[in-house]
């Protein structure tokens, strides 16, 4: 890989080493007059990521690539100083998407090199450009991708290895980049550097806060329980419990954590279980309080993926893009509230 590759995929070990070898220290880049344009480019990238969710794929010559690579640590400093989860995630995603575009231009050798840089051993076929990797490396990154084609069961595995197309491989590498960029953020930023970058940080911060407000993220928990907003898995479990059907252990756990997470009182949950054929009040109370955090750990409701694995997802089409039962509930509550306000206004 060369400097052009590093500029487009700046989180590689190769890029890091390249920067170490070059004589420019990151403190100089942040303070020295000569690097004004680098700092402004860094700010520009962060703003671009924030506003568009992507970074434009630019064709660099060598000096431009050099400048771009220098701007990367500065952009990270800006993102770290603001320390806003939304911004951090959005920035990491944009860097990853740019990496994807660049990886798609790779030839076989570069693909293999990049994978090796990320600690994945891959054999890339020079003609078909498909990559063969170990299935554990595959699931390590593919498990976050929700399309059915990414399930391990949708792939052909032989002797522990599986082969994926160049496009899929690039998508997988995009995921590695996203994780790599995101995991290192926010990092510590020395006071004097923050001071030196003040104007850029303030500008991005302002843009970020406008955007986050627009998104309407609310931090407060659920004020009251609205049973009409339960996802199908939970409402069918409650119906089963009340109809004397014995629930599986994992479903009981999921239902209890869900109800606790949305703020239902433990006593009320005990009441739901009362109709179960093997109900014993004392045991049930103990278990619910344990899950609620009596022993120090408060549990969160399992994700949709876990529910599916354990056979607790009724697989209703209404959940299409939902990844977590609590997300379903949150959205539904939000939607209901919106309807209510509309009614009041009209």
């Amino acid at each position, binding site marked *: 890989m060369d400097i052009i590759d590093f500029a487009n995929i700046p989180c590689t070990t190769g890029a890091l080493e390249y920067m170490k070898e070059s004589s420019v220290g990151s403190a100089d880049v942040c303070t020295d007059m000569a690097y004004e344009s680098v700092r402004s480019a860094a700010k520009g990238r962060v703003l671009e990521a924030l506003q568009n969710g992507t970074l434009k794929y630019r064709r660099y010559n060598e000096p431009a690539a050099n400048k771009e690579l220098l701007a990367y640590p500065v952009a990270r400093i800006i993102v770290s100083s603001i320390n806003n989860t939304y911004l951090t995630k959005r920035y990491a995603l944009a860097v990853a998407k740019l990496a994807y575009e660049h990886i798609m231009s790779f030839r076989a050798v570069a693909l293999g090199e990049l994978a090796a840089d990320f600690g994945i051993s891959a054999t890339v076929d020079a003609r078909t450009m498909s990559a063969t990797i170990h299935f554990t490396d595959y*699931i390590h990154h593919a*498990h*976050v991708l929700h399309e059915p084609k990414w399930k*391990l069961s949708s792939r052909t595995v032989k002797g522990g290895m599986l082969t994926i197309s160049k496009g899929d491989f690039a998508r997988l590498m995009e995921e590695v980049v996203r994780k790599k960029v995101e995991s290192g953020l926010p990092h510590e930023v020395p006071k004097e550097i923050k001071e030196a970058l003040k104007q850029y940080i303030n500008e991005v911060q302002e843009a970020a806060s406008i955007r986050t407000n627009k998104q309407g993220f609310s931090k407060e928990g659920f004020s009251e329980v609205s049973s009409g907003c339960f996802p199908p898995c939970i409402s069918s479990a409650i119906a089963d419990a009340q109809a004397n059907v014995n629930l599986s252990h994992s479903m009981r756990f999921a239902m209890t954590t869900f109800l606790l997470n949305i703020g239902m009182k433990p006593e009320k949950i005990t009441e739901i279980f009362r109709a179960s054929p093997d109900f014993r009040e004392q045991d049930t109370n103990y278990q619910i309080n344990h899950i609620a955090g009596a022993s*120090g750990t408060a549990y969160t409701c399992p994700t949709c993926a*876990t529910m599916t*694995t*354990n056979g607790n997802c009724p697989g*209703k*089409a209404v959940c299409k893009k939902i990844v977590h039962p609590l997300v379903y509930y949150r959205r539904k509550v939000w939607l209901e509230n919106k309807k209510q306000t509309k009614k009041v206004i009209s």
Partner: protein
Amino acid sequence: MSSLSDYYWHAPLYEPPDFTSREFGFRKNGEKMVRHKAFSSVQKLRTFLIETAPDHVYFSSSKYEDPAAYPMEDKKKSWIGSDLVFDIDYDHLKRPTLKEAKKQSEKLMLILKDDLGFKKLLYVDSGSRGFHVHVHDECVQKLGNPERREIADFFGHFKTKRGRKIINPNWVEIDTVVTTDFTRLIRLPGSLNVKEDSARACTIIKDS
């Protein structure tokens, strides 16, 4: 001395790799499980079994720097890695017979060897309702929860987003919770599984 103690004098107790990093648990019928125990050698474990004569003996698929740490949160902090474990219980099967469980576990062994390419497999008759397979290969040790879930899903049917059911040729009715939750304890091969009226040993069918 009870006959259980007698049994453990000469029992062919299985020694899992990294024995001293494993957590052990014991249970007497009708009593609560005692867990978070660790032993410096199989001999020490044997002595413990002879003295206490438990009805059930379990060990962790996970390895910890401090396997006796409690509560679980503290133990998890010293997590080193976990074997991958599969459990086929005949009473959870669509056709609940021991024969079907045997058939499915053999299919599971084949897929694990040929498709997933595992080399170090321990195939166990649990001494009660089914079969366990422990995978000791290095590549599974550091897998997290979601990755193990992917592997568990590899053996199940699945639905598309539109709700269409896809039939999976690799379908095996494993207990998915056992495969995904690595804080669980599994019956130790060589120990006895004691029921009210009978006792059967948990035995190794194949160790490769």
